């Protein structure tokens, strides 16, 4: 994406973020922990670059890559756009960064800490957007956000179930849970049988040892 156009598009986003940070001392304090840090986010499909910098308690967003800016990112996270976007909705206990579709270079702890910090802030975007956009519009945006999250949760669950069923029942690429249990039970039965055979063999050997030697 053209960095000039990308940077233009980020102007309102940066403004909103810094308005939120400026109005809430708690959020500002949390973000101070990341001061002078830079995280570069690279989307592969579509190809977009976003770098996120924290300077003097403010957030700086740019569509210019760190190489062009002549700075070094403390951490780089790259992946497909949909994978990156999903990070925003996932909780840290779901370990969203432990995703093979994501490449993280540099300070992975920084990325993790940032994700946990954003999650812990539990920002109600509607409250912050209302003074800027007006109550009606920010309420509408809040409804859209909540609907999107609900849809994401139900769609995610549905997709997981459908994929699991497809792989096991239709494509037969993986066994079903029942088949795995049955196989596991037969294995246990076989192991017990082997143990019993082993015990009987030992008993026979002891008895043979006690018999008088044939002349």
């Amino acid at each position, binding site marked *: 994406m053209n*960095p*000039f156009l990308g940077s233009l598009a980020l*102007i309102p986003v940066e403004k909103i973020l810094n308005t939120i940070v400026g109005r809430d001392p708690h959020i500002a304090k949390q973000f101070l922990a990341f001061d002078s840090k830079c995280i570069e986010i690279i989307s592969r499909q579509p190809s977009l670059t976003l770098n996120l910098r924290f*300077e*003097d308690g403010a957030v700086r967003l*740019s569509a*210019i890559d760190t190489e*062009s800016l*002549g*700075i070094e990112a403390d951490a780089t996270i790259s992946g497909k756009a949909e994978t990156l976007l999903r990070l925003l909705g996932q909780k840290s206990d779901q370990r969203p960064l432990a995703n093979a579709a994501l490449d993280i270079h540099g300070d992975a702890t920084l990325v993790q800490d940032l994700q946990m910090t954003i999650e812990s802030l539990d920002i109600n975007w509607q409250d912050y957007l209302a003074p800027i956009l007006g109550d009606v519009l920010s309420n509408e945006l809040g409804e859209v956000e909540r609907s999107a999250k609900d849809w994401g949760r139900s769609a995610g669950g549905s997709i997981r179930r459908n994929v699991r069923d497809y792989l096991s029942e239709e494509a037969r690429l993986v066994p079903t849970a029942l088949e795995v249990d049955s196989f596991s039970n037969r294995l246990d039965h076989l192991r017990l049988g082997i143990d019993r055979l082993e015990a009987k063999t030992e008993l026979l050997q002891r008895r043979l040892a006690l018999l008088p030697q044939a002349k």
Partner: protein
Amino acid sequence: MSNTSDSEETTHFGYEEVPVAQKEQRVGQVFASVANRYDIMNDVMSLGSHRLIKRFTIELSALRKGQKVLDLAGGTGDFSIRFSTIVGETGQVVLADINESMLQVGRDRIIDRGLSSNIDIAQVNAEHLPFADNTFDCICIAYGLRNVTNKEAALASMQRVLKPGGRVLVLEFSKPTNDLVGKAYDVYSKLWPIAGKAITGDSDSYRYLVESIRMHPDQESLLQMMRDAGLVKCKYHNVMGGVCAIHIGFKPL
């Protein structure tokens, strides 16, 4: 630059060929004439887009608190005012221009905003910068390089006064990359002398500005000039379809 039959070196002043020694004076007269309405004319000529281009250029500067920046050909202080906030009390901004009238306007704006504590003002010739080697973290020359008589000398001078790892930003009108954009821009820029006459009472100065844009090196030519001046990792960003371009180069470590 070229030579006439009697061996006097000439250079372009818009579409006109003038002796090299005269160009500086002629350019000086242009900017002395437009200084008071320079910012209004920028808005008119760029339809307000110069503010967005300025923001993007500042982003490319990646300046931080405590750094030193030279706003060369900074004239009315647009960039200096913004840089002053970014580098803070521990940093330094030098607003430099060859034209006294433009600097007067810049100085007045800076004083009006109460920003003079970290901004110094200097009347300089970009071809012979009077600063020590390795002084600045960043040098920005916005819409000024095309007015310099010897651009190669100016780029070499900038390279000298940059700190190792420091960067030069050259924001200038350039060659549109798209034919349609180019044609529309050609037609639109023909209106500038007319607007200049209406707003400043001076159409000749704006005719020079339009012509000087046409005579300025294109993106690749300027890129090579920067490399020849000893800058590395040089690249450029086209904005507005190549109507403007921001070139960036670094002094080697």
